[in-house]
């Protein structure tokens, strides 16, 4: 891809100190997002995807590794993991995040309008004196197809449905015209039809605004719909990445295969297969490939060494010794 790189994460490690244990939650994640690209980060719950996303907005401080963000405002690359204070303050306005629980990401004691204005004031200080700020907020709400924006501005988050709250969150995140949007399971808490509406909306908006997106989810179907590139994550490591069409038609890592088999099929009977076992204990992660204790095709080398990425095709890389 000849496009410019917006975000490059290199060898990211996050270690949480909980009591005496050291939880190695993210263990050497590398990924690259190009301008306007929609990345999907997929994996089962507690595999470190959210932690990755939170590192990018500095809600979590990575232990080691680099997160390079190409800031348009500053015209240079910023290392989000260890930024210079002033530069990060400028650059962070270009990164926005949408959270999982739509109700909880809005403050219950203020109206939508108040919160929207606050968001704009912080993310785009030049808009403070803009007399049209209210009009811009209304336009932003219209963009996410909310009916009667004026009335929504005056309502409190708990007066709106989950889907509406999530639309408001999306409008707030996109109103500041970020370069990079991190969407942390924005549709997980919503029902399937609303989820679809929100996804279509988000897709159309980011496509039009050419915003790069890091979409974090455990839903493979969502990834297929929205992402240009998918990263499959297991226990803090990336196991397979590439074009979603290629990966879903030909999953090569046993974990990806397991994930796909775990999806309940509407036409079949009984339960889907799933993957035996559960995510490992992060204080004592398995040696070698972190997936080996649950892998059906486990070999001796998997216990001893960590697999490196094998290039299957230009758009498909797998970290597995089977290849």
């Amino acid at each position, binding site marked *: 891809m000849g496009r410019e790189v917006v975000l490059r994460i290199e060898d990211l490690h996050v270690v949480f100190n909980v009591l005496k244990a050291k939880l190695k939650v993210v263990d050497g994640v590398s990924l690259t997002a190009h301008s306007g690209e929609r990345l999907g980060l997929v994996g089962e719950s507690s595999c470190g995807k959210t932690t990755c996303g939170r590192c990018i907005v500095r809600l979590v401080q990575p232990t080691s590794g680099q997160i390079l963000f190409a800031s348009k405002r500053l015209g240079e690359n910023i290392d989000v993991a260890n930024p210079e204070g002033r530069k990060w303050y400028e650059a962070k306005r270009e990164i926005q995040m949408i959270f999982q629980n739509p109700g909880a990401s809005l*403050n219950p004691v203020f109206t939508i309008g108040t919160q929207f204005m*606050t968001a704009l004031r912080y993310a785009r200080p030049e808009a403070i004196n803009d007399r049209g700020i209210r009009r811009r907020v209304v336009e932003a709400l219209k963009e996410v197809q909310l009916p009667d924006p004026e009335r929504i501005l005056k*309502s409190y988050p708990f007066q709106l449905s989950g889907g509406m709250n999530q639309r408001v969150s999306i409008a707030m995140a996109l109103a500041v015209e970020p370069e990079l949007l991190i969407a942390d399971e924005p549709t997980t808490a919503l029902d399937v039809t609303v989820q679809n509406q929100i996804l279509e909306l988000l897709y159309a908006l980011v496509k039009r605004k050419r915003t790069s997106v890091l979409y974090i989810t455990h839903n493979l179907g969502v990834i297929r719909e929205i992402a240009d590139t998918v990263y499959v994550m297991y226990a803090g490591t990336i196991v397979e990445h590439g074009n979603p069409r290629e990966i879903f038609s030909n999953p090569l890592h046993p974990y990806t295969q397991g994930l796909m088999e775990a999806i309940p099929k509407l036409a079949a009977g009984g339960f889907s297969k799933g993957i035996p076992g559960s995510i490992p204990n992060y204080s004592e992660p398995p040696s070698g490939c972190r997936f080996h204790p649950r892998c059906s095709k486990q070999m001796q080398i998997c216990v001893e060494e960590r697999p490196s990425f094998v290039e299957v095709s230009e758009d498909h890389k797998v970290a597995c010794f089977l290849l």
Partner: protein
Amino acid sequence: MTARYLPQTLRGFQTERFKEGYSKFTRNPFSVIGLSLVLLVIFLAIFAPFVTPYPEHAGSYVNFKEINKPPSWKHLFGTDLVGRDVFSRVIFAYRYSLLLAITVLSLVVPPGVLLGLLAGYYHGTWIDYTIMRITDIFLAVPPLILALAVTSVLGPSMLNAMMAVCLMWWPWYVRLVYGLVSSLRNEYYVHATAVIGASNFHILWREILPNCVSSIFTKMSLDVGWVIMLAAALSFVGLGAQAPTPDLGTMISDGATFLPDLWWMSMFPSIGVLIIVLGFNLLGDGLRDLFALEEI
């Protein structure tokens, strides 16, 4: 996703919310009793010179013709040892008690809340440990004992006693706010505000504090009763308000010497304390139920 999810009009909805809160509050008769008692006491205290039959009896007034009179239509609560109307003095004592409670709380709440906010927001850092350990030290001393110690050193006066009470009261607000903030700081909307680049000050002041306000007010309404009780207790043992200030505690202790014969001298001021403390406690309980708070 149509407009039918929305309230008819905002004004209509807010009136509805108010009505809902009102009906929730009035569902419990005790809350209503508490509110009525509080309002009654505040009304009496503000208009004391107009509602009392003998406003001049509040201070140093002597009328030996009328001493030790039992309750009658002329003197509803009877008269005391120097012939002053007990009813008038109880009403004026309310003025004093309320003023005292307001002063103590307004001195105690701001620093307590501020320290609680800081300690809770910087949870797990040295700021948290420093503030909370100092708080623990202060909590270890019982307020009444410290007030006794301070007044016996600095001399018995209400000012000294209340300084001691203030010194002992702020840690409770630190603890309350600390607990609230420690959980609120992990809310998504706090993270969301941090992500858009808001300052720590903004997050604390504009996002977290407004979510603590209902708890703080509820605790304050409960504390009014406690402070009045404490002040009365100090005056009762002679370390608080000094004569001729009309004070409920002093009046009770003056009359207690002549129990049970001259019962009205101590009985009516005691009922006075009961009414004001009960009123604020019931009101506080009602507010707690209204805001559905559990941590107070």
